[in-house]
């Protein structure tokens, strides 16, 4: 298992370099004009010299290799627009905000979506099921900025119980952003949980569990729930990528300095290094999420866990089994 995880973590490097290559090609050959063409710089020899000094005029391959080398061995994302502020420091400062928002959003999605879906499945076709279906459909149909707007209006302006500005000292400040990010994902998670739970409750082993005298609560919440979570865990990776869009909106709406807002401003400035840095970090976040998803999946699904434990162990097991059968 440890070996497998290390292998997966090492796989992040080629994936990130690949994504950077694609973006690098797009930005270098197509976007063309970089920050130096902006009218505020005017022109002149002195400026050209500065750009040349910082390597802005090197050819594509040199630039790409230097960029990758700096990321890999120095953790250095270069300077904004080749000559500006230190992108690495900016990223470091902003990763925390984005991760906090994204994490609380994912947490809220699961905390709301899974119980709602399970409740709907257990009360299939009754009022509770219909209400949950309707409410989740409604929330998944409203864009995040509208959700943020209505939440702000209600909790901050009307009730005055939640602050509008993010601050790390009060977890209350994260309620509205987390809800805003979550509401798009809640519908899909709730639907998935409902379908998976309904399918699980029809499995034969549920009958067997009842027949051996377990209480209904144990059957549903311990056995059925754990089985129903298996497909949901494998959908987590997609969920995080879906919620990133919401995070972007929330950073914008609640004025949080995060990766998304940094990226939006640097896109406006044609600031390639910053765009690339943000994209690299976002890709790493997604890849790491996928690894965590796989580990969780293995944790919840014993069959996969044993598969990872190594082929040799599996063969040994098979040998033992045959021996049992014959004995």
């Amino acid at each position, binding site marked *: 298992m440890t070996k497998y995880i290390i292998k997966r973590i090492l796989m992040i490097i080629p994936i990130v370099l690949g994504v950077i290559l694609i973006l690098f090609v797009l930005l270098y050959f197509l976007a063309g004009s970089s920050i130096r063409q902006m009218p505020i710089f005017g022109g002149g020899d002195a400026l050209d010299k500065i750009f040349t000094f910082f390597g802005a005029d090197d050819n594509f391959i040199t630039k790409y290799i230097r960029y990758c080398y700096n990321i890999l061995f120095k953790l250095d994302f270069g300077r904004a627009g080749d000559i500006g502020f230190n992108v690495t420091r900016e990223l470091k400062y902003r990763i925390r905000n984005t991760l906090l928002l994204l994490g609380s959003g994912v947490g809220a999605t699961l905390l709301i979506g899974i119980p709602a879906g399970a409740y709907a499945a257990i009360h299939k076709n009754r009022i509770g099921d219909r209400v949950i279906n309707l409410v989740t459909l409604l929330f998944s149909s409203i864009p995040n900025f509208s959700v943020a707007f209505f939440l702000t209006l209600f909790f901050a302006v009307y009730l005055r119980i939640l602050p509008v500005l993010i601050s790390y000292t009060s977890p209350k400040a994260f309620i509205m952003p987390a809800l805003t990010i979550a509401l798009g994902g809640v519908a899909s998670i709730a639907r998935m949980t409902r379908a998976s739970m309904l399918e699980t409750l*029809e*499995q*034969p*082993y549920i*009958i*067997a*569990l*009842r*027949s*051996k*005298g*377990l*209480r*209904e609560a*144990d059957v549903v919440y311990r*056995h059925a729930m*754990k*089985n129903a979570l*298996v497909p949901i865990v494998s959908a987590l990776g997609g969920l995080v990528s879906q919620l990133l869009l919401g995070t972007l909106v929330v950073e914008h709406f609640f004025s949080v300095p995060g990766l998304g807002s940094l990226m939006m401003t640097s896109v406006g400035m044609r600031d390639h290094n910053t765009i690339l840095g943000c994209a690299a970090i976002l890709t790493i976040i997604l890849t790491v999420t996928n690894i965590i998803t796989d580990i969780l999946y293995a944790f*919840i*699904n*014993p*069959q996969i866990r*044993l598969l990872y434990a190594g082929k040799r162990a599996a063969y040994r*097991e098979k040998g033992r*089994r045959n021996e*049992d*059968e014959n*004995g």
Partner: protein
Amino acid sequence: MDISSDILLEVRDLDVSFQSRQGEVRAVNGISYFVRRGEVLGLVGESGGGKSVGVHAVMSLLGTSARINAGSALFEGRDILRLTRRELASFRGREVSMIFQNPSSYLDPVFTIGRQMVETVRAHDKGISKESARALSEDMLRSVGIRDPERRMRQYPFEFSGGMSQRVMIAIALLCKPKLLIADEPTTALDVTTQAQIIQLLKELQEQSGMAMLYITHNFGIVAELCDRVSVICGGYIVEQGLTDDIFYHAAHPYTQALLKLIPRIDSPKNETPPSIEGPPVESVTLPKGCIFHPRCPCCMDVCRQNAPPQTALEQDHSASCWLL
């Protein structure tokens, strides 16, 4: 001991139907059977004949689309169709246990065998410690013929073959020493060799513990091996019941006779196509009027098409429902 307390489970006039898109499906139409203490009753019939439903209904294991229209099931004098949820939970598994057709799909795939056994013990005996529950489970696994139970307890169901899973199911079912074991075609999904081993095991366990057993099957070979008495079920009706010997040598109902003819014989001529009962099995949505078997019966009379035959007692414990009698 008087006769009435000799009877462990008595099912009377059980009537079960399912709601479906085509309308009401009548799965079981007023069947009655009983199981005495320590005896093995075989419930025999074709697939779709209502054997499983008639037994699952007794354990209140049918889904929401099923409805029990009438009938009672007295277990030691208590009507188990009318238990509360809590009573039902403590009844199932302790008084009556069940094993099923496809063993590997009846074990929860994401819990170890050990946990599934320990939780069963502790569900019925709240005071027992985890360690003694484990010890009890290991003993039980050993007694169903699983070697190295300590290691096997830590494994998951998918690491067990079909025959081994069925042994585990049996072990779980017997953990709380039930008075009755219901076996719902437990060997149908297994290969012939394993089948024989499992039947042998069930026979030994039943004789050792003296529990009663209700064995559902479509295979008369198993009946001959295992059962004291037989009830033959067709289209949701019990058409004949009696001691195993009576059924085998003096089958009264044409349906039973037809089923008996299906047993492959070692002396049957080669290249002969395997026998089968002529005609389609009963459609539960549109039950035929009169006798349930008349559309396929070789000796069908006018009266069979009009009226359902009454039950006729033939010998002690042997009765059949047919106009011929």
